[in-house]
C-alpha cells in the first residue's frame, strides 16, 4: 500500500509535505535502537520510532524503509524534517501509540 493511502486510512499526518508519498509500505518495524533497525528492518517497512533527531534520516535511508512514523503526538525536529524532505524520506506523525498504529497496519497490510 502506498504511503499516501496508508495516511488516508489511518489518519497519520506527514511532517514532510508531499515528498515520497508514492512509496510502497510492505510492513511495519518498531524499534528505537538504531543499529538494530539497520540490521533487522526490511526494505519497505514503515519504521516506528520515538527518536526525532537528524540521524534517523540516515538510518531510514540505510535500512531502506518506506517511511518513518513518530507516534504518541511527538513532534519531529525541524532540522530532521528538512533533511528528510531533501532526501525524499517521509516522516509521519500520529497521536496513536506504536501498538495502535501496528493494529491498524495489520488490518490494512495483511
Amino acid at each position, binding site marked *: 500500500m502506498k504511503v499516501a493511502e496508508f495516511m488516508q486510512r489511518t489518519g497519520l499526518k506527514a511532517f514532510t509535505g508531499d515528498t515520497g508519498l508514492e512509496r510502497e509500505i510492505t510492513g511495519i518495524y518498531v524499534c528505537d*535502537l*538504531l543499529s*538494530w533497525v539497520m*540490521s533487522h528492518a526490511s526494505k519497505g517497512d514503515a519504521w516506528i*520510532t520515538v527518536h526525532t533527531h537528524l540521524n534517523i534520516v540516515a538510518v531510514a535511508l540505510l535500512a531502506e524503509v518506506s517511511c518513518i512514523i513518530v507516534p504518541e503526538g511527538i513532534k519531529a525536529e525541524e532540522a530532521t524534517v528538512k533533511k528528510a524532505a531533501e532526501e525524499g524520506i517521509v516522516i509521519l506523525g500520529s497521536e496513536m501509540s506504536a501498538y495502535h498504529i501496528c493494529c491498524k497496519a495489520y488490518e490494512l497490510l495483511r
Partner: protein
Amino acid sequence: MSDGIIRLKFDILPNDMSAAGEASSGVKKVLNQLGVEPQKIKKAAIAMYEAEINAVIHGGGGIAEVVIDKEYIEVKIRDEGPGIADIELAMQEGYSTASDEIREMGFGAGMGLPNMKRYSDKLVIESEVGKGTTVTIVVNL
C-alpha cells in the same frame, strides 16, 4: 581515473552527531552512480556508517579513506581516540562504553562492531590504547 580505481577521503568531525553519516552517504551515492548491486551498496554503507558513528562518539573524529575497485570496496576509518583495550570484548554484541547521552539517541547499544562484521566481507580492527583505532572494512563487489 586511468586505473579505474576511485579514491575518496572524508573528514569525520568530532562529537558532531548531526554530521555523522555524511561520509557513508557520500559513498553510497557514488556506488549508486557506478551501478553497484543494491544489496552490496547496503552492506558497505551500513558497515561504514557504524564505523563513522564510532569515530564520532569514541574516536574524537577521524578520517575515512575509501577505495572503490572493480572487485571490492575498502573503507578505512582512522581516529586518534583512546583506542580499544580489549577488541574481543568490544566485538561482543551488547558491550558498550557509550555515554548515557549517546544511548538516549538510540546509539551505543553495543551493536556497532557486530554490525560492521555482519555487513563486511572482511573486517580488520587495529587499535592501540592512547593512540587510536583504525577500522578497515572490505565488501566484495
